[in-house]
């Protein structure tokens, strides 16, 4: 059974950037979502970040926010997300990370949630509104929260993230919410290098990664990239032609896969 740590290390050994895909669970519908996930694996995705829709996703930009609202309008929630994770785990070999805002998780109860999440094969958690100082609430449940950092993070915060000895640190690329945008290249490179001096934990760069060109730009500075809004855009574009959608997802990842080869540098 693969795990996040190993997936990251394998990529590091093969001198390639690990690819993490973010996709909202159960959208556009359950079967199509599962087909997309299988296609992402075919396309070379290493780790899947499965999102749970929430009514008030304040770290997300317009694109992902639309998926949250679509999901909640259909009555999707953490319980349904966990059920779906079971199905995903039975259909693919990628490591699975769950993305959820803190309230649904808190409401379910940390004990019950982590038990069910482990049973569903989930290995890690991304909770965007649970900053480093509050992350201790998840200690001792056998479920790894992924620490996040941002360009605004002080050295002290970087060291706090380092001390968690996580499978990776999620480095948010910009001061902002999720979504595609032109990225300030040099600033991000400097920021990743700054983080790197304080930790040996692998670094995943996310927010605004919108194609192969950015993968190429940052492949020597990070250990992984997270691709979310880019996939959401493809889903919105092709969901009226559902038979074409999985193929497009695979194609997108194959292109990103080409761009990640030839990684130099890194620790």
């Amino acid at each position, binding site marked *: 059974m693969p795990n996040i740590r190993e997936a990251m290390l394998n990529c590091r050994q093969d001198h390639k950037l690990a690819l993490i895909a973010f996709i909202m669970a159960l959208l556009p519908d359950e079967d199509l979502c599962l087909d997309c996930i299988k296609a992402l694996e075919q396309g070379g995705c290493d780790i899947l970040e499965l999102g749970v829709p929430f009514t008030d996703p304040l770290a997300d*930009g317009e694109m992902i926010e639309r998926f949250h609202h679509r999901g909640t309008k259909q009555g999707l929630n953490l319980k349904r997300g966990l059920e779906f994770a079971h199905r995903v785990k039975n259909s693919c070999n990628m490591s699975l990370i769950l993305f959820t805002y803190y309230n*649904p*998780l808190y*409401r379910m109860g940390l004990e019950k949630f982590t038990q069910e999440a482990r049973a569903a094969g989930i290995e890690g958690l991304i909770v965007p*509104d649970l900053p480093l*100082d509050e992350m201790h609430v998840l200690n001792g449940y056998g479920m790894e929260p992924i620490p996040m950092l941002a360009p605004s*993070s002080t050295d002290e*915060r970087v060291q706090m993230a380092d001390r968690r000895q996580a499978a990776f640190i999620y480095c948010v690329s910009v001061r902002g919410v999720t979504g595609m945008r032109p990225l300030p290249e040099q600033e991000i490179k400097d920021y990743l290098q700054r983080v790197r001096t304080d930790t040996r934990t692998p670094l995943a760069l996310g927010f605004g990664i919108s194609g192969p060109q950015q993968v190429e730009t940052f492949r020597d500075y990070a250990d992984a990239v997270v691709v979310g809004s880019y996939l959401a855009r493809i889903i919105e574009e092709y969901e009226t032609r559902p038979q074409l959608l999985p193929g497009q997802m695979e194609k997108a990842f194959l292109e990103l896969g080409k761009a990640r080869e030839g990684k130099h540098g890194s620790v």
Partner: protein
Amino acid sequence: MYPNEKGYYGRYGGRFVPETLIPALDKIEQAYRQLAVDPEFQAELNYYLKNYVGRESPLYLCERLSRELGARIYLKREDLNHTGSHKINNTLGQALLAKRMGKERLIAETGAGQHGVATATAAAVLGMKCTVYMGARDMQRQRLNVFRMRMLGAEVKEVSKGSQTLKDATNEAFRDFIQSFEYSHMLIGSAVGPHPYPMMVRDFQSVIGRELKEQFKNLEGRLPSYILACVGGGSNAIGIFYPFLKEEVKLIGVEAGGRGISPGEHCATLAKGDDGILHGALSRLLQDENGQILDTHSISAGLDYPGVGPEHAYLRESGRVSYVNVSDKEAINAFLKLSEYEGIIPALESAHAVAYALKMASELPTGNSLVINLSGRGDKDTEEVSSYVEERQEVL
């Protein structure tokens, strides 16, 4: 003394925001703690509160209502402040703080528009830029305040996502702040949000309670029996309660009971909610069994919010403050009664506190005194109330 250094009031409060914002919150807290004890800053704030806002606000005895109900009913007249509500106490405080921090722009969320107007006003007088986020539904029912904000030079951004009310306006303000905190200050208007906001808002609003203590002692030589205030997020309530927490005064917070107790029909968060996390704090929350935030309803846009400040959650649990609720209809009746009996048109928000005071005053033994925080004036609500009354003739 609450909050503790991590921003907790008992188990409520904290900072549940994206990591990106943590350094921004740290800086605000640092600056605030410095300025809170800086005599020069306090003098500047007091100058504006006196000469610009018109403080202190009067304490008025409602003679006709008192005679009818048999208890002495007082109003703390925050409606007479410049801009027409208590909101300006906090917006001037935070705007001056933001200016000291070198910020050039203010971001605000608003429900009824009172906080939006107060922020736009502070921005205008201090020469700052201002963006206000407001739900599309609220823009419609509080049109007058939209015009006012625009005239004051603020940019009003319509939020037509989700519930189209204060909750979603707040989400949008946070998103703006996450991108712009280097040059912008998010000026939260209620006692909600991540630490240090609930503490700052409480401190800036506490001027209401401090004045009341003096005024009441001068009038009656003691403290009032009861103090009542409406609670949405809870800024006017915490402002008037805070200086009395350690005194022998009964404190009552009045939430919006809306159309009834079914989910989606009210905003009685402290009565019907559970523990949960929204907009950066652990507090009480109206949510479903899966932790999704519920839609809410209140005739009053300023109370139409599924959360409440963490300090109120704490005061409810400790039992220090009683929280009750009144319906839309009771609030409307109180709105009309105060207008007709005392010539004071209250904001629909404040009318909730008036409604409960009227209800309880008639049942109290004689000799009791009640102070209602009249947090805002009701000009903005006259259209809404007229159409409510026209649609339901039975009210009158």
